[in-house]
């Protein structure tokens, strides 16, 4: 098995007109995969589809080489999940959750759970109602990890966390993939979290898959060519993907940095961050 998840021709439409798909992609085992896109682009729909929380219209999904519906119970033992909205009842305490999860997961590890609570400074006796947003997130992360999953599926796991906690959490994620059998799918709009630790980037816009690429390939090959307003016509159409007009200049998104650098010696060619890439691809003109 080289892929933790395989998705073929997935599509899902809603009554409000939003449509996800068709999407086909693989999530390679042993790596950290970042899922990016605007709010409403379809990240959560994709994640909930993989988890069979949403019924998809067409397509098929395999997790650990098994059909995700026929083998749902077996598969879910090995998946740790953080969703954007907390799914625990408000009146439970953190130690209640230990008991409940112990009944749900065969591999539930109470010691590991309390270790994480300790590490995150979470008060065991408090009810969920009285936890701050950041504390709830940390609780979800602890819960996701405490049954020794092989695959973590995380929807915005770092949103609402302060920078110190975020870096702690990212370290926990990197520690998780020390085991080559472990995989993380991680959606976020804080792209800087992924800039360093993600191996692949999946980018969804308006329900469509626009990019599924090795992060190093993006960093090495993509870039921004900048030129003044007057020089717009000097850039050939085949050399850029999209462009954006600013007040004093044009930004062109390129995906062949070294070749473009040779061809356009007089123009500025900058490296691109994932955030800039996202903005250009969403806001840029063809």
């Amino acid at each position, binding site marked *: 098995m080289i892929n933790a998840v395989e998705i073929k021709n997935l599509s899902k439409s809603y009554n409000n007109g939003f449509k996800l798909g068709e999407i086909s992609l693989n999530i390679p085992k*042993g*790596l*950290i995969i970042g899922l990016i896109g605007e709010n409403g682009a379809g990240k959560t729909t994709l994640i909930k589809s993989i988890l069979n929380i949403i019924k998809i219209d067409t397509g098929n999904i395999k997790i650990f080489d098994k059909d995700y519906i026929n083998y749902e119970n077996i598969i879910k033992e090995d998946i740790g999940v953080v969703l954007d909205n907390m799914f625990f009842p408000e009146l439970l305490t953190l130690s209640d959750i230990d008991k409940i999860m112990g009944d749900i997961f065969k591999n539930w590890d109470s010691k590991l759970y309390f270790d994480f609570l300790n590490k995150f400074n979470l008060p065991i006796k408090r009810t969920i109602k009285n936890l701050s947003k950041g504390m709830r997130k940390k609780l979800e992360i602890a819960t996701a990890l405490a049954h020794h999953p092989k695959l973590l599926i995380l929807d915005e796991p770092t949103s609402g966390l302060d920078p110190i906690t975020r870096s702690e959490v*990212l*370290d926990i994620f*990197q*520690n998780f*993939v*020390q085991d*080559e059998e472990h995989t993380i799918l991680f959606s976020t709009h804080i792209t800087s979290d992924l800039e*360093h*630790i*993600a*191996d*692949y980037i999946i980018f969804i816009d308006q329900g469509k898959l626009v990019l599924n690429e*090795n*992060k*190093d390939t993006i*960093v*090495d090959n993509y870039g921004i060519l900048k030129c003044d307003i007057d020089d717009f016509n000097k850039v050939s159409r085949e050399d850029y993907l999209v462009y954006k007009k600013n007040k004093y200049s044009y930004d062109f998104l390129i995906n062949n940095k070294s070749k473009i650098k040779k061809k356009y010696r007089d123009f500025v060619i900058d*490296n691109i*961050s994932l955030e800039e890439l996202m903005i250009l691809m969403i806001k840029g003109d063809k």
Partner: protein
Amino acid sequence: MLYTVIYCVYGDVMKIIISNSSSIPIYEQIKNNIVSQIMNNELLEDEALPSIRNLAQDIKISIMTVKKAYDELEKEGYIISRQGKGTFVAPKNNELAKEQAQKEIEEYVFKIINLSKKFNIDQRDIFNLFDILRGEEND
């Protein structure tokens, strides 16, 4: 962009400094760090390097980036990976290092030639400059 340096030391053995603001790709920075330590005898033959996944976590870089650095180092003969045992510093090959350096020098000379042509700078001026700078270094 913020200037960030990640600094990491492996028991006194390996040092890695990575700058996020540098235009040099991160995998190349990792390579350069390791190569220069091999060349300076700070990393000796048969010394074990951290595993790809360990190093990735410690310097907060993706696994694939570190893997790319290690793959290239192995292809260039600086390190050897032994199945199931880990990655080790290869026997030092001075010829190889020299070749590598010569290639790098060629690239710089190319740049000098291009620049001097562009601004019509006399070759003799460049040789003079070379002699002056070299003299300063010897002082």
